[in-house]
């Protein structure tokens, strides 16, 4: 009888500890993206080495991030980098050499992915390329 009582207590304890509460709510607005090497509206010139440097953080694990630089007028990708990660905070440091000879507007998109369901935080920066 004593053994049965102990067994019951253990089973109840295991059942209780196996309950899993789930409050998951994606909060893409809590993704903080800081681009330290560039500012909005910055001019870059042909043959310039453009450093894409900064930090992404979230209140939980990030699942990945991407860095995409586009020719805004042609909607053409000039540079793209994708990284799968599982940290709350990641630093990035990449570069792109400007080979454009025309004056054109560029768009830098930094995206922090917070799950596998397409939830993410995005920071955009407008740049101007000049010969």
């Amino acid at each position: 009888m004593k053994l049965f009582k102990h067994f019951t207590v253990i089973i109840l304890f295991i059942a209780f500890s196996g309950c899993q509460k789930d409050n998951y709510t994606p909060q893409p607005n809590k993704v903080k993206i800081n681009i330290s090497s560039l500012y909005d509206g910055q001019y870059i010139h042909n043959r310039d080495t453009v450093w894409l440097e900064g930090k992404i953080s979230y209140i939980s694990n990030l699942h990945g991030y991407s860095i995409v630089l586009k020719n805004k007028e042609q909607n053409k990708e000039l540079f793209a980098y994708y990284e799968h990660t599982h940290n709350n905070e990641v630093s990035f440091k990449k570069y792109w050499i400007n080979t454009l000879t025309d004056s054109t507007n560029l768009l830098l998109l930094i995206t922090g992915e917070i799950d596998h369901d397409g939830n993410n935080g995005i920071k955009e920066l407008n740049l101007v390329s000049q010969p």
Partner: protein
Amino acid sequence: MKFITTIALVFTYYTSVACDVCGAVSNNQSLGILPQYYKHFVGIQYQYRSFNSVHPSVFEGMPSQNSSEYYQTVQIWGKVNISNRLQLFAFVPYQYNNQQTDVSSISIRGMGDASLLAMGTIVRTPDSVKNVKHLLLAGAGIKAPTANMNKTATLGNALNLQTGTGSWDIVLSGNYTIRNNKSGVNTDVSYVITTPSSNYKYGNRFSMGITGFLWYKTGNWALQPQVGIRYDLALHDYNNYSQKWLDRNTGGYISYTNIGIQLFHKRIGLQTNYAIPIWHNYAKGNVKAISRYDIGLLYFF
């Protein structure tokens, strides 16, 4: 012949990961069938496990990443009888983990998480009984975060190559054996209650196995073939424990069938076991167990 064996109080330790759909699921191990006529033993064990994983891309339009994970563990372990009713087990693993993708191969090696387990004898048929004998053991233990976080495995799928979990875990274990002179059946259950580390909490783990065995003895030699089935279940991980954010891509179950043999000669024991998965659904089906085998040497004193 006074020869009572204690079977497989299956103790479980884990090399889980903070990557939701990566390989490296649970690392379960059995103590095997241990003769009780010596009070203490020390042993060395080698274990190999392999998995294939698919990591769906988080980026729209990008392909999934495939990888294979190989885990090799060399472990020093032992048992000390504190009294007639209490046994202490200790485990100190060293791990070599490797992950191969289409474009890279990463290896991490280092000490794993050490564990301590105390098992008490709840029911034991006296040696004077000649027919069916029963042995019921139950106990608890802890797994300490003794492994070092390896900095080369902090990105992407490589996270699951870490040699430890970083958390203190509580282990509950029970083991029941019924046997006669030539054969027996063992049932073991273990449950691991994890605690959070850096706000990440691995899901609790449940493991249950049933093993049938035969027993042959000639002179100083004894042979014990065995066959069994095991079911391992892992609950979901919390990737933000303070907020109770459950990661439903983690957790799942794997069921193995296994075959093994143990050989004893005087104070020396040799044990080996091979297991293949029969059913599994881990990390939403993205992780497939391939095979698992172990071999170990024991010295009784």
